[in-house]
């Protein structure tokens, strides 16, 4: 993933805060936020994940003119070779870590670059062989300063995770 322009916008912060059930006024009210230690509206701790909105190639978003694998009249719009097991589109999210060098603020213009990290395998009791892969994403601001380092670990399972 590479994101050339990830503007931290007030409306987006508001929608994101709503979606995680957070009514803290620091995410909604610029006047309130200006009077706090943060000095302005900051992004919630996991907000940088929403950089997916600004990644032109992000594969978990329907795109104009391209087939989409979710259901329409039939259960999927795309017939695919081997789904890679549970998770549907690209496996499951196993781990996520953030290091905050500072917290993004409304008005920041971030960029993101992602590098592959380690990969490893494990035998899972509930889902067969598990293949883990790590990615490290660096979010930098308009001055080139590092803002957040995000490490994600995805897992592909041999079969859907047993329930119960």
């Amino acid at each position, binding site marked *: 993933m590479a994101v050339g322009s990830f503007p931290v916008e007030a409306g987006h912060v508001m929608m994101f805060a709503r*979606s*995680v059930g957070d009514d803290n006024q620091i995410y909604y009210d610029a006047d309130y936020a200006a009077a706090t230690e943060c000095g302005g509206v900051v992004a919630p701790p996991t907000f940088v994940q929403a*950089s997916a909105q600004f990644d032109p190639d992000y594969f*978990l978003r329907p795109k104009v003119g391209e087939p989409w694998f979710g259901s329409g009249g039939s259960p999927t719009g795309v017939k695919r070779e081997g789904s890679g097991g*549970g998770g549907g589109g*690209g496996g499951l*999210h196993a781990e*996520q*870590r953030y290091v905050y060098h500072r917290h993004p603020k409304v008005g920041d213009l971030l960029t993101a670059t992602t590098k592959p990290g380690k990969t490893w395998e494990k035998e899972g009791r509930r889902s067969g062989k598990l293949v883990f892969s790590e990615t490290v994403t660096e979010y930098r601001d308009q001055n080139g300063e590092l803002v957040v380092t995000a490490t994600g670990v995805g897992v592909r399972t041999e079969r859907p995770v047993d329930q119960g």
Partner: protein
Amino acid sequence: MALKAANLKVGDKHTERLVEDLKRTQIVQYAGASGDYNPVHTDELFTKEMAGYPTVFAHGMLTMGMTGRMLTNYVGDGRLTEYGVRFTSQVWPGDTLDSTATVAAIHDGLVDLEVSTVNQDGVEVLKGSAQARVD
């Protein structure tokens, strides 16, 4: 709002209810805000027929986001320096989640926290740690 090191001791706990009876609509809200439109989170037909799960399930990042709300309510806004988790079990519509931060260490103007989120059956769905600046 921020924590004071002098008032903290190892073992202190802060617990919040993150959500009661998680609604599919909230999962849709999170998909829209985050941009992760994986059909396994919002598309019942795809999830049952193609992915092989009984119904849609929450994004791990929705649970991490709600758990982050518990953390910022505890440590104050803009105070986190690190936050990391493992997703240890899936979260389903109808779930009720409670999350707890436990003080593990206090050092150098920082507090280390252990973080755990459990569902209504006591199953841990998220396990992790966080660090925050304290006064």
